[in-house]
């Protein structure tokens, strides 16, 4: 989106990333279809799995996080987003409530790892220790670790709900997401 020719000076900068989610909330974002063209006139996506940039800029207007905090890596990303983004949005039920990833909280972490990497594996069952982030004992919603400004529940929130929230923010108003979405929507 940063490739459009319009001046980028007054545009609102947006960063997004996914933590422990399924990327469905990002897909729902893309489901805004032709409205993305309108949006591209008003916002600049400066960091996201949807674009190429590798580093979170120093200052971003709006940060959007999908997914719960389940690993050390998720926690670091959430803290970085909080530090660099003026306004932080929890997008989707995993970010807002813990949702499906948090179902594992009812089991011991060692049992969860055994189930995934030993019990169901035929060849060289082993629990990975290198190059993968260490899992936290308890999966948590984002606001239990860093302050969040806007909550958009839904699994995933509809494209209409995301459009509503972003349009309100761009217009300088505080959105009331309960008007358009809910847990499990």
């Amino acid at each position: 989106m940063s490739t459009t020719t319009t001046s980028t000076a007054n545009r609102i900068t947006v960063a997004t990333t996914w933590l422990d989610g399924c990327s469905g909330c990002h897909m729902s974002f893309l489901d805004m279809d032709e409205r993305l063209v309108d949006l591209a006139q008003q916002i600049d996506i400066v960091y996201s799995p949807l674009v190429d940039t590798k580093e979170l800029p120093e200052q971003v207007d709006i940060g959007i996080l999908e997914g719960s905090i389940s690993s050390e890596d998720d926690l670091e990303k959430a803290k970085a987003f909080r530090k660099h983004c003026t306004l932080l949005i929890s997008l989707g039920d995993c970010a807002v409530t813990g949702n499906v990833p948090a179902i594992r909280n009812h089991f011991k972490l060692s049992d969860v790892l055994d189930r995934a990497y030993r019990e169901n594996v035929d060849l060289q069952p082993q629990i990975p220790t290198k190059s993968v982030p260490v899992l936290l004992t308890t999966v948590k919603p984002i606001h239990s670790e860093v302050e969040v400004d806007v909550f958009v529940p839904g699994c995933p929130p509809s494209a209409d709900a995301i459009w509503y929230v972003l349009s309100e923010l761009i217009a300088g108003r505080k959105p009331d997401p309960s008007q358009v979405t809910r847990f499990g929507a």
Partner: protein
Amino acid sequence: MPLPVPQPNIRVVTLKIDDQDLSAREDETIIEVCREHKIPVPSLCYLDGLSVWGGCRLCVVEIAGQGRLSAACSTRVAEGMHVHTNTERLQRYRRTIIEMLFAERNHVCSVCVSNGHCELQALGQSCGVDHVRVPYRQTPYPVDSSHESFRLDHNRCILCTRCVRVCDEIEGAHTWDVMGRGSDCLVITDLALPWGESETCTSCGKCVQVCPTGALVKQGTSVGEMVKDQHFLPILARRRHAR
């Protein structure tokens, strides 16, 4: 069935709810008058046709001149009463109650059989609960799938006791009761036997239909498939009282 004859010695009172001047029979509760006049008051344990429980406190209202809040489902109207149903303070309390219900047990709406047809979920949305500020307790509760037609998931139970009351007052079986206190409180069948082994349950399914959440559901339902039908209740309740 003959129409119920109005009781001659029941008086009519006048009162004000929000900004409406209304009249009501003196034996009516605030919530009944609100429902008649389409004034929305959130509620979970109250259900037209069952006795009043007054446990969930979602229906709290303010009565002018009284410092403490009153439950609209268990407070009778009175002459000259002035009721407020939706002040900022009430909205704040209701929000907190709903958040605590979500935090106490385990609600994962996206994979729940009652997704889209759940009174707790709908109230969460209408009261503006877009996140839960208290920490989730993360304590697992048991699921009883022993009944051939129905299932009980304590993780989704909000202890409204609608199941207990409908089974006792309408079906007359009194299979359900409540055991334990605080967060250990559970609804039980017979003397805490698995539901499938209950000798009193007639498998009528009334408890499943009145349960506001995904705690009591039909076997074999998948995500979002459990739609409940409570139309039978006021009809049966009126017939019972007319006898």
